[in-house]
């Protein structure tokens, strides 16, 4: 058993760390306060290949793997969770299903520009009535000659406001239940497709989270992803893999908070001592560090399993459940160490606490993760 990163992963981590510190961190507060997408960062991520990490070079990618992608999410999340969710939705939820389930033509047409970062991707599964109960899809797709006609709406879709390519899950045959669900590749300019309401959120405020509306939306037949009726399975597998990314995001937020807090307690004086000298501070930090390291091992293990062709769905669920819980817990405890200053927006800690919460909710709530884990335990 080897717990060290390979040399290339270490070099990549060094690159990502300095990119995050220098390019992403200075914008984090502004992006949060102004609730704006950091397009300048997206452009830079494109330049350095960050938008196509785990895909082969033949498809416009960087020839990396899941672990490399996870490292990117982790490092970016330490400084700005808005930035990392843009990358996560683009990579895990849009490019990845096309890579895993797409035809060669679909890969050439969509994966290549997505992996190169020329196009940005998003994923539409959630509906007003189908959140945790994803099988309750209301969006319909009907085949009419050489195209499908989609009708319905999706909500809470990350990257929706500016993405070019969407994976849309829709019901093709209601009578078959989850086996009647199909996946489609939809371009933003397809007739009948539009972006609706922009959500105002508690955290990851810079990310664009919107409603998608399909009114007689025309999708060419060749844009069916996988076979008809395989949509649910594609969506679930996509989420399995996406969860590793969100777990890494939670991990990164927690690690970023701890890092900031260590810096703060070394400076802050009360009772004529640096607060780092108080045992409560030291024990709090030590205990948080232990939790974060445990989360990191779980996240890396899930990525490793995926990269090595092993079943990873339950490992991803375990990683996300634990990392998300840790992120919320750690950011809250870090803020407490800051005291009143932590509650102000002069310091990043309150943002990190707001950002952490979402990791317990999206791409499967913590309760969903428990369902996945329980099902793996064959407890019914």
């Amino acid at each position, binding site marked *: 058993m080897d717990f060290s990163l390979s040399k290339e992963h270490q070099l990549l981590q060094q690159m990502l760390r300095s990119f995050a510190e220098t390019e992403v961190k200075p914008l984090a*507060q502004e992006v949060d306060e102004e609730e704006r997408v950091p397009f300048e960062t997206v452009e830079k991520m494109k330049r350095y290949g960050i938008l196509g990490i785990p895909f082969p070079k033949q498809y416009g990618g960087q020839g990396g793997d899941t672990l490399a992608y996870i490292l990117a999410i982790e490092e970016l999340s330490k400084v700005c969770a808005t930035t990392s969710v843009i990358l996560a939705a683009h990579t895990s939820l849009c490019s990845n299903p096309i890579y895993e389930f797409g035809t060669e033509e679909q890969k050439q047409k969509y994966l290549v520009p997505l992996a190169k970062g020329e196009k940005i991707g998003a994923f539409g599964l959630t509906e007003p009535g189908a959140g945790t109960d994803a099988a309750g899809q209301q969006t319909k797709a009907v085949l009419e000659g050489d195209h499908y006609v989609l009708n319905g709406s999706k909500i809470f879709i990350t990257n929706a406001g500016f993405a070019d390519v969407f994976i849309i899950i829709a019901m093709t045959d209601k009578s078959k239940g989850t086996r009647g669900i199909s996946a489609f590749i939809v371009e933003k300019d397809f007739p009948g497709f539009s972006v609706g309401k922009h959500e105002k959120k508690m955290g990851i405020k810079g990310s664009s989270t919107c409603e998608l509306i399909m009114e007689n939306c025309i999708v060419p037949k060749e844009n069916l992803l996988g076979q008809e009726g395989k949509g649910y399975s594609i969506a679930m597998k996509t989420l399995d893999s996406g969860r590793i990314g969100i777990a890494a995001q939670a991990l990164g937020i927690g690690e970023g908070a701890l890092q900031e807090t260590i*810096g703060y307690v070394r*400076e*802050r004086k009360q009772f004529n001592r640096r607060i780092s000298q108080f045992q409560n501070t030291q024990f709090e930090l030590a205990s948080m560090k232990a939790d974060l390291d445990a989360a990191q091992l779980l996240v890396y293990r899930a990525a490793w399993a995926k990269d090595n062709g092993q079943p990873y769905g339950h490992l991803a669920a375990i990683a996300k459940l634990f990392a998300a819980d840790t992120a919320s817990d750690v950011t809250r405890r870090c803020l407490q160490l800051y005291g009143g*200053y932590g509650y102000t927006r*002069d*310091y990043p800690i309150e943002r990190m606490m707001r950002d952490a919460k979402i990791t317990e909710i999206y791409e499967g709530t913590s309760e969903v993760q428990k369902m996945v884990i329980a099902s793996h335990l064959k407890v019914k």
Partner: protein
Amino acid sequence: MSKDVFVVMEQRDGEIQKVGIELLGQASKLAQDLGEKVVAVLFGYQIKAQAQKCIAYGADKVLVVDDKELEEYLTEPYALALTQIIREEEPEIVLYGASSIGRDLAPRVSARIRTGLTADCTGLAIDPETKLLQMTRPAFGGNIMATILCKNHRPQMATVRPGVMKALEKDESRTGEIVEKTIDFSQDTHGVKIRKVAKEEKKTVDITEAKVLVSGGRGIGSAAFFQELGKLAEVLGGEVASSRACVDAGWIDKSRQVGQTGKTVRPDLYLACGISGAIQHVAGMEGSDFIIAINKNDTAPIFDVADVGVVGDVKAIVPKLTEAIKKVKEEKAAK
């Protein structure tokens, strides 16, 4: 047998630069300790008239190479001339200003004659027993000081930071020898040509690059007072910075902000004017080499990190300080 302390004078536009004059002052002390002479090496075009000035500032002898080739600094003609002089005269010590010119020329010459060179010295002394030159310089980003020796090679060479050594009082009555040298510049095969020389235009400000920062806080009272801070910064060769309070008040641009949500700076001198020193601000400037704080409130936390703290009215002190510095500088320049 090598002897004498040589100083490579620096001239620009036919004017001797201050650092050379400072070096003559230091060289006089070293020469005295060695019982040897101070020799100024003066390169330039139509520069002869400046030789007497070298003597007035402490040179016992001036070696002048007056040639069109030496009018504007270029590495190879200067290196050729200096190497020839060092070979002929065999000095014990050669000192250069650690200016752009000195730091370009000295290593080139040291490699040609294969002798040691210590860069950017802040202290020079003669060991009373060994008579070796002890060259002290900061290293490791200024975190440590190292004293360097060059035992077996001659000359012992050093570049010296401008502003560190003290010039002697100018003494017009001093006498010395002026010797003209000629150099065969046809040996220069480098073929480097100057296309253009231009005085530098002012570039955009990056406060993290500035050596001196004059920083204003809420205590300066108004945006207008930044003009006063600007004047002070100008006489100190620095830039204006600010605490967050002034940025939030719209008194100054965000690019000047020091601290947690601004920039982290480590200038040689940080002059905190009317800054209370909230932890967020201190985090961005405590790495500064020397901190002077002026604040009305004697319990302001800025005084905890300041090397020099003055409890007083910043609005009264700053303009007077600017004038006083100007005066001192003028007096120094006049010498």
